[in-house]
């Protein structure tokens, strides 16, 4: 922690950055974002296993974008979303100072035990950063090993009718607060398609039709881009297991397009490219 505070003060004092986004503690077992603009605020910086927020999401905000240079404290998983922002022309590499934190794991959203997402993590050690803080953590999974999400198995084992019933029940609680969208580092559109009304693709009412369409389009727009940070699901006030959708499409991208998002800023997201030999068994 000393390291982090020291680095932050250095960056702020030297005016290398206009703003630093990090974590502060929130109660005994919690952490929340902290916007640091002076060295006094920097004293509050922490990093521990309760630092769940993906702070990269703030980089999409217009007021943050307007600043000359911003530092952000990020775990390997968060950096994957930064890589996507880079490849999608949403940030300029020069305008962001990444303070990469090595991270063994964070806690699950309810504050107990290891977070599910950490079991499939390949970047306990930040893969792209301006400075890496913390002791190196041994990586448990090889980079080229496909990731499999255990929690999908239950859903996959259901019949189609059961899956339908499952999702209708889950999505009935959706109140369309768009916390999933706002917390997502990759939902950066100036005008979301749901706010588009010529035509109104997606019913804005939180009725079954609108909730279904909204969650389809949200998952679809993240297809091949989602980096499994899990923020959408964590911030959902209705506890809807949104990551099941994202992870299903992540697996599809791996299986069909040999693609995992967020590792290489030079590569193109899979839905913006193709291979002639792509699988087409489902096409008659």
């Amino acid at each position: 922690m000393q390291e982090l505070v020291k680095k932050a003060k250095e960056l702020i004092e030297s005016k290398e950055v206009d703003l630093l986004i990090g974590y502060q503690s929130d109660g005994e077992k919690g952490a929340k974002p902290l916007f640091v603009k002076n060295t006094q605020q920097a004293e509050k910086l922490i990093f521990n296993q309760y630092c769940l927020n993906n702070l990269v999401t703030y980089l999409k905000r217009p007021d943050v974008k307007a600043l000359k240079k911003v530092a952000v404290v990020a775990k390997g998983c968060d950096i994957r979303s930064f890589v996507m922002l880079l490849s999608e022309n949403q940030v300029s590499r020069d305008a962001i100072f990444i303070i990469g934190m090595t991270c063994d794991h964070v806690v699950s959203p309810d504050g107990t035990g290891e977070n599910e997402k950490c079991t499939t993590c390949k970047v306990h050690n930040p893969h792209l950063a301006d400075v890496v803080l913390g002791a190196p953590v041994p990586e448990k999974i090889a980079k080229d090993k496909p990731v499999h999400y255990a929690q999908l198995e239950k859903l996959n084992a259901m019949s189609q009718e059961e899956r339908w019933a499952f999702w209708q029940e889950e999505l009935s609680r959706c109140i369309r607060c768009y916390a999933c969208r706002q917390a997502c580092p990759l939902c950066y559109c100036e005008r979301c398609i749901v706010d588009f009304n010529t035509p109104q693709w997606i019913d804005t009412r939180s009725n079954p039709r609108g909730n279904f369409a909204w969650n389809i389009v949200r998952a679809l727009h993240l297809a091949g881009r989602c980096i499994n940070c899990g923020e959408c699901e964590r911030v959902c006030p209705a506890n809807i297991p949104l990551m099941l959708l994202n992870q299903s499409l992540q697996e599809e991208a791996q299986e069909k397009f040999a693609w995992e998002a967020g590792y290489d800023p030079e590569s193109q997201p899979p839905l913006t490219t193709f291979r002639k030999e792509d699988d087409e068994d489902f096409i008659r």
Partner: protein
Amino acid sequence: MAEYYITQSKMTALLKELASDSGMEVFGPVKKGNDVFISKMDGKTELCLDYFISVNSIKEAIFPRFEPILKYKLRSEGVELAELPPIKPLVVFGGHPCDAASIPLMKDLFSWDYKDHFYLQRLEKVVIITLACVEKDENCFCTSLGGSPHGETGSDILLERVSKDGWQAKIVSEKGKKFIETHLDFFRDTITPEKGIPKLQDKDIPVMFQSDRVKKWIEKNFDHPLWEEVASNCWSCAACTYVCPTCHCFDITDDATMWEGVRTKNWDACTLPFFTKHASGHNPRSQSYERYRQRISHKYSYYIDLFNHVSCTGCGRCSRVCKAGVNILDIVKRIDEESKKGEK
């Protein structure tokens, strides 16, 4: 006045019975994961009676997330108005006094310059059965706004826990009285109060700020840098407003196929980025902190100008759902401190 009691099992049975009646709407607490939601029930819904506070407020029972206000059909002869679904009698069970306290506040608004008969009709037909609090957390601050963990405001019936298995039912309104009388069978048992049943007193939730001092500061400090400091974390979703018992903004949307259409009153939120976006492309509240400032200012200042009451009941729900760490109590306390400094 007679004393009425009801056991948990009878309460469950009563709600289920009412929920089976297609002529009625019943809302009750349903567990999902680690949390409880006040949800619309049918005869088969499993109720959860062991919880601290629901994620959402009882608001959506009376002020639905969406509600058709006009239906029409297009015919070659012209436009034909279609009938709207009837507003059914409803029972809302499972809120706390901080939920119920929102009712008179919302009524003030919906019967203000324009009488919103959808809301008012539903209000007439609703029976609100409130549970007095037995637990609290660091986000609770009802007492700072004149509320109480066992306050009666807005409720029709207030249930106070007397045993592990039951409540004493306090009639608060005529509607409440009528409800108990109609379903007297369920309220006949006498429960002897058990010892050691926790009860929350006003003093358990200390007063943490003075709302009039907060208002004074807000009136004078629209451009104060404090706003940006306390709300910079906000990422502009509507979770806080949608779980809030007093947030009441809505949008009117049209949805039409070729032959018919419906106009809907649809929840909206001042925290969402597009809320004030003009057709010109200009957005007077383009920053997230500006939107959050609006939320606080509206509740703690503008609303008082109109209705002489803070539009917040201190339930703390917004702070609980906010994973960006925006905490209304912290912010209002900060403002109160600033205001105190200014007084000196």
